């Protein structure tokens, strides 16, 4: 749960600015967009492998000793969430009408201010992007297993716990954990949806 929230936040920290940059500079960036959309389907096991190589003792981040810690899982999950969040941020910004973009520029806003304002305009869509990003990282197993190691009480996530239960034939516990996972997904979604409706209520 904590891992998911942190991974989504880290993913948003990268994803939203990248999405804003791509969304607001419409042309010339189509190559980057294609790359982004390809990363949508980045297999978790590859993200885990990259994270492993990055954080293993010989890797560039090896000195931080992150491997097999919850932080390692956060990093890998954010690899998975960031492209989704960035891509959906691009889509959310595309929904802002052209005359609003123009009005913002015509009001004298510089590029940074205009970007800030327009991201605010696209907030409902960006919250939806966070939901999707969160959904991807919540139940992910392969990456979490690779860099977390499923250490009990340390890096065992609900997903990896279910995997282990199934391996040991404990289907009852696996099902219970599965239900818990669904419940958590429901609660997180409900929370974000509430945020979305609250922000949007003065628009109705």
């Amino acid at each position, binding site marked *: 749960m904590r891992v998911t929230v942190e991974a989504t936040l880290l993913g948003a920290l990268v994803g939203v600015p990248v999405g804003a940059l791509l969304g607001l500079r419409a042309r010339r960036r189509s190559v980057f967009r294609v790359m982004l959309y390809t990363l949508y389907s980045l297999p978790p096991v590859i993200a885990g492998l990259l994270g492993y190589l990055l954080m293993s003792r010989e890797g560039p981040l090896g000195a931080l000793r992150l491997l097999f810690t919850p932080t390692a899982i956060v990093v890998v999950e954010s690899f998975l969430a960031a492209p989704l969040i960035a891509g959906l941020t691009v889509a959310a910004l595309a929904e802002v009408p052209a*005359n609003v973009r*123009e*009005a*913002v*520029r*015509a*009001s*004298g806003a510089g590029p940074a201010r205009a970007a800030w*304002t327009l991201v605010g305009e696209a907030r409902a869509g960006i919250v939806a992007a966070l939901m999707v990003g969160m959904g991807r990282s919540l139940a992910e197993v392969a990456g979490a297993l690779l860099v977390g190691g499923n250490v009990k009480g340390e890096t065992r996530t609900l997903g990896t716990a279910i995997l282990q239960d199934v391996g040991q034939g404990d289907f009852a516990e696996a099902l219970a954990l599965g239900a818990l996972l669904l419940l958590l997904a429901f609660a997180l979604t409900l929370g974000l949806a509430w945020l979305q409706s609250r922000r949007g209520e003065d*628009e109705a």
Partner: protein
Amino acid sequence: MTPLLQARGIAKWALRDASLSVAAGECVALLGPSGSGKTTLVRILATLLAPESGHVAAPPLRRIGLVQQRPGFLRASTLDNVAYPLRVRGASRATARRVAAERLVALGLAARADAGAWTLSGGEAQRAGLARALVARPDALLLDEATNQLDPEWTRRVEDLLRAERARGCAVLLVTHSVAQARRLADRVALLEEGRIVEEGPAAETLASPRTERLRAFVEMA
């Protein structure tokens, strides 16, 4: 007089070789049929759009006020929308709102200040767009059919307001379909057709005795 807004030999989309200038304290009415490129020319003069060829001289965007044909608003109150140009220029929220509120009063929108800008009717939206364009006291004002949804009473009051802006030295470019409005407000008129200015001159004389068949037809139709 050196023009404040100047476009020379502009080509872009429908425009081909369009030239137009507006001096400080002058009001120029730009007439022309739909699709002749009026909005494109306005956007190029406002430096919101780069021409394919030609030359543009205009004050920086911060000193221009633009009223769009269909004003785009942020998802915020009418007041905050009108205050936005001042916020962008570094005014505090309180100051920006106070000045914006004065503008809303002048345009009869005081009662709509706290309403979401997306709830405004067509005429109200045009007045709010004008309030926003004027709030930072621009050097040049570009109006793209900015009064076509106003009732006669508000059309007259907005025209008075535009005269006051011109009197303080603001350059006003008025895109309009109304020959009558051009007569009432403009010092000069220009007719844009098929991407070019086909006739241009002092408003009263030019509209009274057009040189070209095209402007004559336009005046007679109106």
